[in-house]
């Protein structure tokens, strides 16, 4: 799959922006939001290439032939800039935004647009966001800034209010499956359906899951959780094991299982799950913990997922969380009445 494939669920937004462009009303600041795994960054890239193309074809699509497109595809277009966290960094710093301001102070090389893609926009630290404000409000003529984020609430409110919001929704399950299934050679439609459910309906995220190794570790990880809740596992050892796999992914899975368990507890064994393939196991494990503790643990994990993006020691975080989960189920055992 190449970066330039057109994703079918983008079409509504694409047409919307092309209509704006034709009418000369394209906003200078766009915020592309929606769940992770929908290709919002790719949409920004596609829009940039179309704007920088010297002779746009039908539907406003870039021609792919001209010098502008050639440079763009080689990643060398002088009028296109992407701001993303630098290697080994978690945030987009103020220096990067200042570089962008310098970039905008000069005229464009080809006299067309200048496009700036900031992703993920919520990763800009406070200083960076503040120094962007002025430019975002009133950039030089012919500039389009695209802020890509799947957590608009984490973007400074002053930035959000200066952008036109373009929201990406999840595609319908059937059409997402139509797109996903042919891209998963050697796997059946049912497997694609499971992957899509695991990815919360986001096709690109499902595709990434299929390509990664983390899926193979799901089953053993769930067994760890079962041990933990029946007070037979060692939280420190489990934390160490999970850390080696991937702290972020394991937190995510733990979260999604616990959420599924709470669904099973409250809505019965037939409820809709994010992990349909583990229905039996989840039902079994959910017996080990009571609802109040389950909900408490869910909110703990939510907090931990956010903390993991900041400056926190992942090992300590994971150990702390798993111990809390275990203690929670212990209390349960000691006071069965609660």
């Amino acid at each position: 799959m190449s970066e330039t494939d057109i994703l079918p669920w983008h079409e509504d937004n694409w047409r919307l922006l092309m209509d704006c462009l034709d009418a000369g009303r394209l906003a200078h600041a766009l915020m592309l939001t929606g769940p992770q795994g929908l290709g919002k960054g790719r949409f920004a890239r596609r829009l940039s290439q179309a704007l920088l193309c010297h002779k746009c074809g039908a539907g406003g699509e870039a021609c792919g032939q001209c010098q502008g497109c050639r440079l763009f595809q080689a990643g060398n277009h002088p009028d296109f800039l992407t701001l993303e966290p630098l290697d080994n960094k978690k945030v987009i710093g103020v220096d990067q935004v200042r570089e962008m301001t310098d970039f905008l102070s000069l005229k464009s090389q080809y006299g067309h647009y200048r496009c700036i893609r900031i992703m993920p926009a919520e990763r800009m630290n406070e200083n960076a966001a503040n120094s962007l404000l002025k430019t975002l409000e009133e950039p030089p003529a012919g500039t389009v800034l695209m802020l890509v984020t799947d957590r608009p609430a984490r973007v400074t409110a002053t930035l959000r209010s200066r952008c036109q919001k373009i929201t990406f929704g999840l595609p319908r399950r059937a059409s997402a499956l139509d797109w996903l299934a042919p891209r998963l050679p050697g796997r059946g439609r049912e497997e694609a359906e499971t992957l899509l459910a695991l990815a919360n309906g986001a096709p690109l995220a499902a595709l990434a899951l299929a390509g990664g190794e983390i899926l193979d570790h799901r089953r053993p990880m769930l067994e760890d959780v079962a041990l933990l809740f029946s007070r037979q596992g060692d939280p420190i050892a489990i934390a160490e094991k999970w850390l080696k796999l991937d702290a972020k992914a394991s937190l995510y899975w733990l979260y999604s299982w616990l959420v599924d368990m709470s669904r099973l507890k409250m809505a019965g064994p037939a409820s809709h799950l994010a992990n349909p393939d583990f229905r039996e196991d989840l039902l079994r494990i959910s017996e080990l913990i009571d609802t109040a503790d389950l909900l408490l643990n869910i909110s703990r994990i939510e907090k931990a997922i956010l903390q993991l993006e900041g400056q926190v020691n992942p090992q300590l975080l994971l150990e702390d969380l798993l111990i809390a989960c275990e203690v929670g189920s212990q209390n349960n055992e000691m006071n069965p009445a609660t």
Partner: protein
Amino acid sequence: MKFTISKEMLVKPLQMICGIVERRQTLPILSNVHASVSGNRLTLIATDLEVQMSTHAEILNGSDGSVTIPARKFLDICRALPDEATIVLSADGGEKATIRSARSRFTLSTLPAEDFPCMEAPRDAIRFGIAQDTLKYAIEHTQFAMAQQDVRYYLNGLLMEMAGSVLRFVATDGHRLALCDLVVPEAEELEKFNENQQIIIPRKGVLELSRLLEESDAPVQVAVGNNFIQLKTDQIEFVSKLIDGRFPDYQNVVPVNSDKRIVCERDLLRQALARVSILSNEKFRGVRLEFSPGLLHVHAHNPEQEEAEEEVSIDYDGPNLEMGFNVNYVQDALAACETAQVQLMLSDPNSCCLIHALDDEQCRYIIMPMRL
């Protein structure tokens, strides 16, 4: 593509353009030099997306084509070869280029020439020719007043204004301003434009230009487009992007009704200021100038309560006047005047000071006073 060239023909043009190849590049291809052969001419291009330089060299023989190769490594290799060496470079469109010379052989990685972001020569440009030393003079007598990394990005450059047959350069950082007028001999092109045409050349381009231009009356061809300015001499072609902004209305700042005229020896004043400034506040650099008939009293003190005083005789017969200035700005202006005597025009302590060479208003310097 293939070409054969003698080392001495190649090294100098290559060296000239390698200066703008930055070590820290955002795009990998910018650390490469674009080499193309057409006939018996080799063209080398380097750019950092703000400025671009290209040079030519004559080759002994070769076949047409183009390629980009790592600039530094190419230069280092060529420089390290013996003086009388003949260099053969060949690139067959693959990912490598080979350099051969006598018993040496180097293989360099390449990137496709089509992916190199060249700046195109400005179309529908204003074109005129001017002597190199004249242009260099104007740039060197104004560029020191440009702002550095100011948030008012349009001040981080040099304004070039084309009005009739006069070419005017203006630089300012908001505290002082330098202005230089040039008369362009072949100004037919300029006169075609009724309105004053203004462009702002970015700081980097200006510094690079003053380095490039030579102290000779050889001509340089200037072309000014919407997005670029291009300067072309026999050896080199220089293109700079322009700043996308409007320069402030500097003409309002130039004082016209200053009634107090002071003439003094430039060197005496400079030396006096240099001595007094030692004890001025290191941050604000303020000095107090007290003008009285025939005498200028210069005074400075610093937070440690140390003081310096100097007297300089001047040619002045107006009322007493006391003003504060940033001594660095005054020194810069005096240094740029270059004549034995300079003229200061003042009106009152809250208005700016105009400095220029005696009876010569080609270059003018305006300094805002300080409240001390």
